[in-house]
């Protein structure tokens, strides 16, 4: 079972640890998802204050950090891997975090994001962008600004190694708290039956 404790001791010291604070360095990332998991995270409400006492939120869509930092202890990843930016970020997350957690059904199973897997990519793009009112000219999809879609949406663990899974669409705050508090305590994430239902 992977826990923060095992990861901490077993870790290679690649770079010197930044000696800023003894708090746990937490990150949350947003790949192909609807941000619902993050909303649910915010619904931790007053627990967020408790959390803030023990963690530094070093990267998150709700914090203004551009680059995924080094030496992260725990990263919660919302959303499935749907485009090339997600691939790049997923790779960085894995390299720079001790524990990676698939956070919510999209990261765990592909979920709603993967509904598009039934359609060939070209058909999908044509349908969405080139047909009907406001059709845009062709040729813009693989631009440097809009990240290219990968042919098939993948759950996170099919792209990088994942240490724990929090199912739910979205996982409700109780679930998130159960998982996060276990992670922070260095314990394995074992959610009770009622908290590990998909959907």
């Amino acid at each position, binding site marked *: 079972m992977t826990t923060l404790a095992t990861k901490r001791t077993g870790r290679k010291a690649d770079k010197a640890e930044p000696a800023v604070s003894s708090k746990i360095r937490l990150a949350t990332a947003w790949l192909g998802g609807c941000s619902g998991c993050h909303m649910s995270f915010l619904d931790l409400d007053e627990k967020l204050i408790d959390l803030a006492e023990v963690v530094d939120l070093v990267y998150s869509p709700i914090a203004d950090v551009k680059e995924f930092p080094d030496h992260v202890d725990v990263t919660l990843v919302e959303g499935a891997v749907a485009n090339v930016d997600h691939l790049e970020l997923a790779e960085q997350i894995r390299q720079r975090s001790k524990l990676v957690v698939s956070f919510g059904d999209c990261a765990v199973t592909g*979920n709603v994001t*993967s509904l598009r*897997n039934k359609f060939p990519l070209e058909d999908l793009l044509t349908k969405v962008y080139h047909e009907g009112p406001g059709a845009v000219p062709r040729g813009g999809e693989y631009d440097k600004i809009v990240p290219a879609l990968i042919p098939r949406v993948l*759950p996170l663990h099919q792209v990088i190694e994942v240490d724990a899974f929090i199912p739910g669409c979205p996982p409700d705050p109780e679930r998130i708290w159960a998982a996060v508090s276990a992670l922070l305590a260095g314990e394995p994430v074992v959610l009770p*039956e009622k908290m590990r*239902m*998909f*959907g």
Partner: protein
Amino acid sequence: MAVITMTINDELVSGVEGQSLLSLIREQGIELPTLCHLEGLEARGGCRLCLVEMQSTQRLLPACTTTAQEGMSIQTHSERLVRYRRMILELLFAERNHVCAVCVMNGRCELQDEAAKIGMDHVRYDYLVPELPMDATHDKFAIDHNRCILCTRCVSVCDSVEGAHTWDVMGRGVNSRVITDLNQPWGSSRSCTSCGKCVQVCPTGALANKGSTVAEMVKRHDFLQWILDGREKKQWVMHNGGSEGRR
């Protein structure tokens, strides 16, 4: 009726001759997952979730189709069995397109439930993402093949309880599909009596009342025992006090 004695998880238990292993196991209060089997329908042995381990031979046998026998000794939750059950659930989730978040049965689905019970929290296999249709031509019901696990409860109840045999299976292997009549739209079926039994026994979101949306569908399995008791014992008693099916 002769009494038999056997061992389940190292405990001596007694049952009736001819009783299925499954019912004897459940009588002991042991939970065993079953997706193809439903009390009241003929046992099928298809989903393989109810496999138990024979202590003498280490062989695995489905509890639903196996008759309990004097002197048998079985384990119901060995490490190997639990591991295999999890793998089987993973295979089922990977086979078709299960997106619980947008499914009519979200929260009441037997497949979803079993996954949560066993702790199957992610699927290690490739999602196969098959191209599958929905049939919403029937006035009252619809089938979404994306959610079907081919348990064939619908086929069985329609044939043995309703006597219509509207449902059957076509194709083979992973391309199998349940069909109505000879693969005609359900709405045009002349054998379907619109009784809705298939919908009620379906463990997943494959069969549902038309018009139900995400997480709205409620199914009642208790009706089956009610009908069967009425038919066989002339008793009309609701077992669950008429509650709304599971949970």
